[in-house]
Structure formats: structure tokens, C-alpha cells
């Protein structure tokens, strides 16, 4: 029989997460359908909603924490919802309307999507372009990991994702290939961000791992660097194990669109 634990501290959550088949619930929008459709009965469902401050989005002060570099960084708590207005600058000045539905966005959490083992991590390319780092707590304390390196099966037993830390971009653009503009998974996606600590990331398949694009910063900043940026995206994708020539072609196109959007005169890309 599945029991429910409403953790009141991160320590409680970490301790309960040591149970082998425990499942952590942030928004629960992926977990509940999984429970319903599979009949799985974890021994404990760990709810994070009562942990003080878990839903906050706050700037990181320069003196706080080993990751802090400047006040242009922000920390997104584990219970911060995708629809939170404070995150709009990270999605190009609008809500991520390509992600699920408005009702799901009001409930699903950013951190939950980063560590989800139930579906595509649609937000990760955008977060990775802002050099997103996941804060993970276990019984040994706190550590960080790149948002692109979370294992497909999610975090290990005893690990709890507490927050994501990001750089705030001056400009950001995101382009993707999908069947429909919304309520449709990203098949290929490219995100680029200009600003201190920012860069670019891509995803080359439904449910595929997001990859940080190495050496993209200079081409992103250069108004005439579209082709160099596209080449950097191609190199990154082709460094993976499986390469699809159609994906390479589409990635190039998306990269050029991202670059164009970042340098468009329209103000709507300003953060």
C-alpha cells in the first residue's frame, strides 16, 4: 500500500527517498498518469509542497553558495511552476506555450521536468542554454550537476532535486520541430542565449538527451555568425552515438533561425 509523506524539510525528503521504490512528487502531472496507467504502487510518495521556500524563484546573491557568480543568476525551487511569471524571461518573453497545456503548465514544475523519467524533458534545452545546474541533495549533502546529464531513469534512490540554478540571459531564442505548435513533443530543438554564462543547447530526437553546444558563445554574439553557430550545433549533434542526416539538416535550419531571432531588431526577444 502506498503511503504519502509530506516532507517539511529537505532532510525528510532525502531520508524518505532512500526507500528503493519511493517516488517524489512535485507537480505530479507525469507521476499520476504513470500510476494510473501502470497500476504501480510505490511504497511511498514523497510530496515536496510543504517544504518552506520550495516554490520560490529568487536571485542568487554573490556571497551565497558555491555556485553563485553574480546577481544575474537565479535559483528556481523544486516546486516552482512552469507557468510562473518570473520565468517568462527565460522563455523568450512569453510562457513556454509549446509545453503541454496551460492547465498542466500551472501545475507542472520546472525541476520536475528536468528529472522526469516519464516523458521528454522539454524544458532542458532552454535551461541548458542558460547553463542550468541542478541542485541535488542526498545524505552526503548538496551537489550540482548539469541539467543535460540527469540519467534517463532519473535520480538515484536517496537523491532529491532541490532546485535549478540558471544564468539570466540578455536575449534568448528557442526553435523546435514538432507536429503541432503546441501539445506536441519536440522532435528537434535548439535554444540559444546571449548573456553572461549563457550559450546554446540542442535536442536531437523525441525523448533524446539534450546536449550543450560547445564553443557557441562567440558565434551567438556575432551578428554574422549564423553559419558558424549552425556548424557548432552540427558538430555537437554528430558527436553523439547515433547520427541522422535529416536531423543534421533540420538542426542547421533551426540554428540559423535561433541566431536570426537573437539578432532581430524586434524588442520581444529582450529579457
Amino acid at each position, binding site marked *: 500500500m502506498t503511503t504519502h509523506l509530506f516532507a517539511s524539510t529537505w532532510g525528510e525528503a532525502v531520508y524518505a527517498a532512500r526507500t528503493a521504490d519511493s517516488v517524489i512528487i512535485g507537480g505530479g502531472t507525469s507521476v*499520476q498518469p504513470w500510476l494510473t496507467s501502470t497500476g504501480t504502487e*510505490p511504497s511511498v510518495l514523497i510530496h515536496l509542497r510543504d517544504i518552506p521556500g520550495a516554490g520560490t524563484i529568487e536571485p542568487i546573491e554573490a556571497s551565497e553558495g558555491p555556485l553563485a557568480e553574480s546577481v544575474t543568476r537565479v535559483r528556481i525551487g523544486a516546486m516552482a511552476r512552469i507557468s510562473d511569471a518570473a520565468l517568462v524571461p527565460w522563455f523568450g518573453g512569453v510562457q513556454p506555450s509549446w509545453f503541454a*497545456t496551460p*492547465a498542466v503548465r500551472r501545475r507542472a514544475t520546472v525541476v520536475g521536468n528536468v528529472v522526469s523519467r516519464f516523458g521528454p524533458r522539454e524544458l532542458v534545452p532552454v535551461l541548458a542554454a542558460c547553463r542550468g545546474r541542478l541542485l541535488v541533495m542526498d545524505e552526503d549533502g548538496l551537489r550540482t550537476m548539469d541539467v543535460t546529464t540527469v540519467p534517463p531513469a532519473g535520480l538515484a534512490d536517496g537523491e532529491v532535486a532541490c532546485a535549478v540554478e540558471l544564468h539570466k540571459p540578455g536575449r534568448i531564442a528557442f526553435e523546435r520541430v514538432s507536429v503541432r505548435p503546441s501539445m506536441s513533443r519536440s522532435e528537434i530543438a535548439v535554444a540559444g542565449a546571449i548573456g553572461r554564462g549563457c550559450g546554446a543547447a540542442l535536442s536531437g530526437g523525441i525523448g533524446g538527451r539534450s546536449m550543450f553546444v560547445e564553443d557557441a558563445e562567440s558565434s551567438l554574439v556575432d551578428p554574422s555568425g549564423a553559419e558558424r553557430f549552425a556548424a557548432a550545433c552540427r558538430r555537437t549533434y554528430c558527436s553523439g552515438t547515433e547520427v541522422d542526416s535529416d536531423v543534421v539538416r533540420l538542426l542547421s535550419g533551426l540554428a540559423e533561425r535561433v541566431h536570426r531571432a537573437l539578432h532581430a531588431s524586434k524588442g520581444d526577444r529582450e529579457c
Partner: protein
Amino acid sequence: MLTRDEIRRAETYSISAGIESSAGAAPPACTTDGRSITLPLNGTESVWDVLDAHSITLPLGCASGHCGSCTVLLGDVPVPACIVPHAEARGRDIATIATASEDALVTAMMEHGAVQCGFCSPGIVVTLSWLIRGAAAEGRVVTVDEVRDALTGHLCRCTGYAAVVSAAVAASKGFSGNGQGIDEAGTTA
């Protein structure tokens, strides 16, 4: 949020603290359409399952949050009941179409032919009533774009959406002062 004290607490946390935090409490409950409902202490049921067990039956389409037919207000926010674990409703207020709908919208939907089989209608009415009330609280009328965005995640396979959109805008005009100064798109002049 994540303080050094919290980190230290994680390192020194003992097993008794976690178990005691969830034991010995009163049976969990929520309020649904004004009446108290006891929630299960354990189990993996969704809010939809629990409401159904209490004879509050909502349409259930996809069971994955995509079709919107089972949408309720949870803490005054629309959400498909099928994607919410029952424990998340503890201490919260749930409103189904029975108490979350605006009569003006229901009337407008009938007048605009925005209902056919009706399977999706309860969820649509809950969401659009919430949207209309929110716009009215700001002293304005909902826009066509707002309505269309709100309908993302409400699947209708017989009526389509045009009639629903026009009904929502019409209802909102009535709700917010008879539509004076409001253009055809539902935007204020």
C-alpha cells in the same frame, strides 16, 4: 529556500522524524462543491478516482491531462482531476462544474450552438468560467486569443471551437458590463 541549516539537517536527519511527521493526524479531507470529503490515507488514486468514489462523476477521457474533460478548480485553479494525486487535495477546496460554472457562459454556449455530445463541456465550462471571472475582476472582457489559449488542452471532437470561443466572449461581455466599448474581437476599445 535552501539554506546551510537545511543541508546540515539533511545530514543529521533521523528515521523517526520522517515517520512521525505523517502519523497520528486526523483523516485527510478536502472540500468539494462545499461539502467535506474524506480522502484516502494511502493509495495511488487520482483526485478523479476519489471524486468518483464519492459519486461525484466527471467525464474521464485520456487520464493523462491532455483532453481536459475532467477539469476542476483545485484551490481556484483549473486542473484536470486525472493528473492530481489525491493527497495533493488534502486541505484544499475543489469546485466541479456544479459550483464553478457561470450561468452566463452556459446560456451563451447553448445560444451559440457550442455543445453537441457534451462530453468535453464540463471541463470547458469550468476553465472558461474561471477565465471570465478573472477578466471581470480586472474590469475587462476576455479576448479571443485568451479563450483559444485556455482551450488548449480541451479536446472537442464534434462541435469544434469557433462556437465555444464566440460564446465565451459573448458571456464575458455580459459579465463585464454589457460589452460597452468592446470590439468584435473581445478587446476593449
